[in-house]
């Protein structure tokens, strides 16, 4: 009998268990590690890459290294660059249909030559047709000494935008356009500007898993060019302990919890505002399809607003 009594207290405690679940499937990512680079003739530099597979796990692969101008640099299939002659070349890597962004390699003869041209970030990479931007460029030597010079401005698509010799940019029609500044043969990396009628997105919540959720969600850029999410005064949802707002590309509770962007806990209906840029600096209007009301502890989706 005493043994039976001793058994009961042992049952009072139980450790936190562990659920084993598959990782959320995400878009693969292939990136060159490193920024635009300037080299003197004869220099050698090693580039590396990072590949994240469909589970977001870093993985060693054998990518194909590509070089757009073999007169300027030699590029081995291990990422080793040897500079041959003055000029510019883009390098990028490819793996199973996936391509990295390009990195611009500039090779110069001496330390007095222009080795890098930068277009200052205008602070707003999304404009509406009819809007204008005054762009600025700066030129530097390989030793980072700024050179006062005059730039030539060009676009890859004059159908949807125009730019004059002072860098005054005018958006004409919707689309994406690359702006470049050059001095002689040296060109800047392109600055991508999106021209869109859409400066915000609005969606209505609907309940899921038989929970109630309703009201308006709005994604927009504020005056500081930060992406914000606003829940309107008509926003209503059911609550559990740990009711959180997420941005996600799935409505599955487990996937939202695993790969969504957690914006914050809510405990009341009505207006709420979240700074998305503060949590994901690269987020824009297209980055996430859904706003999710998630019971985080149990990973239950109470409601979703679909921007598509």
């Amino acid at each position, binding site marked *: 009998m005493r043994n039976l009594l001793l058994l009961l207290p042992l049952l009072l405690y139980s450790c936190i*268990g562990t659920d084993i679940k598959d990782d959320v499937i995400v878009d693969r990512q292939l990136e060159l590690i490193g920024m635009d680079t300037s080299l003197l003739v004869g220099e050698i530099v090693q580039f590396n890459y990072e590949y994240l597979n469909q589970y977001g796990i870093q993985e060693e692969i054998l990518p194909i290294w590509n070089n757009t101008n073999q007169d300027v640099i030699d590029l081995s299939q291990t990422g080793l660059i040897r500079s041959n002659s003055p000029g510019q070349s883009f390098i990028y890597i490819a793996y199973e249909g996936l391509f990295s962004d390009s990195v611009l390699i500039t090779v110069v003869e001496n330390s007095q030559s222009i080795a890098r041209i930068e277009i200052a970030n205008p602070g707003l990479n999304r404009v509406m047709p009819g809007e204008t931007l005054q762009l600025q460029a700066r030129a530097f030597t390989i030793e980072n000494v700024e050179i006062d010079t005059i730039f030539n401005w060009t676009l890859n698509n004059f159908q949807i935008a125009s730019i004059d010799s002072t860098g005054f940019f005018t958006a004409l029609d919707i689309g994406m356009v690359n702006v470049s500044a050059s001095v002689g043969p040296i060109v800047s990396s392109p600055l991508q500007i999106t021209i869109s009628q859409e400066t915000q997105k609005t969606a209505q919540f609907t309940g899921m898993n038989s929970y109630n959720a309703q009201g308006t969600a709005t994604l927009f850029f504020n005056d500081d060019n930060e992406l914000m999410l606003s829940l309107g005064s008509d926003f*209503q949802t059911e609550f559990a302990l740990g009711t959180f707002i997420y941005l996600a590309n799935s409505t599955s509770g487990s996937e939202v919890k695993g790969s969504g962007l957690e914006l914050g806990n809510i405990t009341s209906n009505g207006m709420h505002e979240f700074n998305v840029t503060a949590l994901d600096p690269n987020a824009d209007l297209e980055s996430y399809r859904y706003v999710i009301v998630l019971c985080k502890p149990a990973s*239950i989706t109470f409601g979703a607003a679909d921007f598509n």
Partner: protein
Amino acid sequence: MKKSLLYLILISFHFQALAGGGWTAGKGQGYAKLSQNAIIADQFFAPDGEIIDITTISLYTSSLYLEYGITDKLELNVYMPFFVRSTLNNVERRQSGRIEPGDEVNSFGDTDLRLKYQIHNSEKVVIAASLLLGLPLGKTAGGKTKNGDDRILQTGDGEFNQLIMLEASKSFYPKAFYSSIGIGFNNRSNGFSDEIRWLFELGYSGFEDWLLALKIYSIHPLKNGNEAEGAGMGVFGNNIQYISFGPEINYFIKNDFGISGGIGLAIASKNILAAPNYGIGLFKTF
């Protein structure tokens, strides 16, 4: 005749002690039980009754239950969950090995005080009326979020129950069966919906030292609460609905001391964890 009468008394005593229902303990007599219950749920009954997968939530309750006869007809019941532990499992991602941390909270639980009065006692049936006060002594927000805020687990619902109940019981002596039925109304505070509760119990004591029971218990919310307030998760939410059924086995090690075990399964449930409630306990009559 004497033997038969003794048998009836013994059965009745068991009924008084273990079955509750319309029976009361009798002045100075009673029943005490130390129990351990566990619910480990990786599924949840959504508000429409659909079963959905969730991160595993567990609830472990250590409780003391007491019945004491103040008079022959008036009985005091106390249910005191003196240690309640709720856990939220870690999630380990199979391919990456990434861990999403779980959570835990330990506390005293919501405690019930009940006064039961036997209003009818005949050879055919005994009937009792009771008033239960459910004291919200558990935690309505515990554990830690990643921001360090207390909120996502609970060991109580945070509302004050006032349950009135009418129960009737009948012994089928000389057959070793008994049954109880009951119906009640639970007035709940803090925006929670009021509830209709009913129960049915069928017991058998035909095996020496054993008492077997099949228990059915149901809660049906009236949906008259505030949808936006008082909501919870697990077994503490608003508008919980279920029909629970399951066997309970009691074994008398001595005349006044025994061990019990039972399982509560749920059907037609809404807004509650979808997992059995396992219970074991030690009881003593006095």
